[in-house]
């Protein structure tokens, strides 16, 4: 039980994939203009991360390791990720066409989200079991969601605020992300 709590706290706060490990920055900056699209993206990415963590563990344990194909990890994981993302894309297109339209190209880009591949590879390198892997995957997704939603809320307020001309748009967003990152690094040493 305590172990699960530690895993979650670690993956959500201390080793936050976006602000501490700097993975998955592309959707972080690209989809955070509006709160609604950010929430949609966060949900999609969490879904992908959890499923991928589970599926990649299974593929690793049942196919790659027994057959001694460790060197095929990257390719095999990309295959898994692509399939899961494709499935997610179809699901979103069906249930929320507006979200599908709003996410646009960023939805299939979850495939190349380094956080997803990063989680899968880190799980194998840390030699975790199935439950731990899944929890890490879910925690990564939760951490990504938390930060993405905070950031998009801030960007929405920045959009109507009195920002100097040269800082408007991406510049002030980057500065904000940097300050958030500083804040999250304060969590290090928590556990």
């Amino acid at each position, binding site marked *: 039980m305590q172990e699960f709590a530690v895993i979650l706290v670690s993956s959500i706060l201390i080793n936050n994939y976006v602000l501490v490990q700097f993975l998955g920055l592309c959707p972080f900056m690209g989809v955070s203009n509006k709160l609604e699209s950010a929430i949609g993206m966060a949900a999609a990415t969490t879904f992908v991360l959890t499923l991928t963590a589970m599926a990649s563990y299974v593929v690793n344990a049942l196919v790659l390791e027994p057959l001694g194909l460790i060197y095929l990890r990257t390719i095999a994981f990309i295959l898994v990720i692509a399939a899961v993302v494709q499935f997610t894309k179809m699901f979103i297109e069906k249930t929320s066409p507006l979200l599908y339209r709003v996410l646009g190209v960023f939805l299939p880009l979850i495939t190349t989200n380094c956080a997803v591949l990063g989680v899968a590879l880190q799980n194998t390198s840390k030699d975790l079991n199935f439950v731990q892997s899944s929890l890490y995957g879910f925690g990564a997704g939760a951490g990504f969601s938390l930060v993405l939603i905070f950031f998009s809320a801030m960007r*929405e*307020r920045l*959009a*109507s605020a009195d920002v100097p001309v040269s800082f408007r748009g991406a510049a002030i967003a980057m500065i904000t992300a940097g300050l958030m990152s500083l804040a999250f690094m304060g969590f290090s040493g928590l556990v």
Partner: protein
Amino acid sequence: MNKTWVTPGGVHPPENKHQSVTQSIGQLPIPETLVIPLSQHIGAAAIPCVEIGQTVLKGQVIAKPAGVVSIPMHAPTSGTVSAIEHRPIAHSSGMLAPCIEITSDGADTWIEHEGISDYEHISPAKLVEMVGNAGISGMGGAGFPSAVKLNPGRQRPIDTLIINATECEPYITADDSAIRERAEEIVEGIKILSAILDHPNHIMIGIEDNKPEAIEALAPHVEGTGISVVVFPTKYPSGGEKQLIYILTGKELPSGKLPADIGMVCLNIGTTYAIKRAIIDGEPLVSRVTTVTGDAVGIQRNYDTLIGTPVSHLLAHNEYNEQAGGRVVMGGPMMGFTLPSAEVPIVKTTNCILAPSYAEIPDDEPAQPCIRCGMCAEACPASLLPQQLFWYAQAQDHERLEAHNLFDCIECGACSYVCPSNIPLVQYYRAAKGEIRHARDEKVKADHARERFEFHKERIEQAEREKEAKRAARREAALKAKANPPAADKINGASGTKPEAKPSSSAAEIIAAAQARAAAKQASPEDQKAKLERTIAATEQRLIVAEEKLAEAIASDSDKQAVLSAAVENTRQKLQQSKTKLAELTA
């Protein structure tokens, strides 16, 4: 003692009420002309039912209500209707609105009127009708037709009647002085309301603790009636309907709902007095108590003012010194607005004319950037987030504004009052509300236009389909005819009706048949002649018009001369042709 609750936020601006309660309610000399706007209330404007030059008596109906949410207007004094036209009214836009002007004859003769004393045994519906006929609308400032408010429908039983005697805004003492002098009549009015609303369980008069004289005046009259006078600490803005309901009952009125939805009715105490006069004395609403105050007027006092009295008349009577103050405000310093000119009339919702000196209410300081201090959110009595509303109003983000409950803002001005940067926050919210309402209206219009367009498309397509069907049918018939043996020559209708296309196998026969049809269509020579004569007459007329136009164009040397002269020539030729044809026919 009734329990009271405390509303969130609120401010304590200096009261400045002592200046205008030193004397009793005064009477003004009747002004020479009175201007009665047709729209002094929420709802449709009243429709005039008098003519210019007509003599009217005091209390006579001069405008009828237009629909359910509307009230009639009555002549405030006897005299002659001198104008029915657009006049300046007390509106922030400075625009004109339809009004009826009455020139008084000085006699102030009442029309025959009669009230009823036994209201307990009259049906509530009849009482409400009397209130409606008396032209009573909310006199606290909103102006909602009281008859509509008192008619919540049988499915909404009223449990609590609240009489609003709060008068929380600084400077205004109209209700205060009315209560001091007319407490007995007011309590009578409350009893009438109770009868109309089927005797609610709780009847409360909500009043602030800065009016001890008024409370004392009410005390003997409410004893034993079941009406409680509930006194609560002074705070602005406790007089708002939602705020008062919360203070007296602890119940929060949900967003978008009316007090009737939670079993309550809230009426201003001035309106209550007017209802008493309407039912018991039979007098329609023709006057109200108005406070005239501010350091720019020599006399500060409350007056029984006739509706339609020009503000200038009030100011002149009270020794107004234009140099001392830059503006005249209708209403109080928090929610009132500066009048575009003093020539506007008093209306049923005017509780105060404030003429401050420059020292009393200095000019607005320029607004500085928002420092995000959050004082506005602390002061808001409706628990809104004025800072967020401000930023979103600047960005014109309608979605976020509605998400932050912009329409629950009562525009009390507490947020602007506390803002350290002097930002006129309420103006932002008013502008934003206007924008959103405008966008909603545009959407309704656009949807309507889309419906019409779809129908238009549908109609065209339907016509096309029918044409296609007819063509197909005719083709079918032609094919069938080819199969059948050819019939005899067709008969031509003497009256010129188009004969049916008879089957004919050879091309020559078809052509002959068509020619015969055309000849038949010519009908009799008399008809033709008549038709030609008509055509000639019409063409002659057109020629005259065309020649006139050409003359005009030549006179003004316009560049349409060539076009017009060509048109004239054309018409002449047509006329010639028709005349020739007629000559041929008669020959």
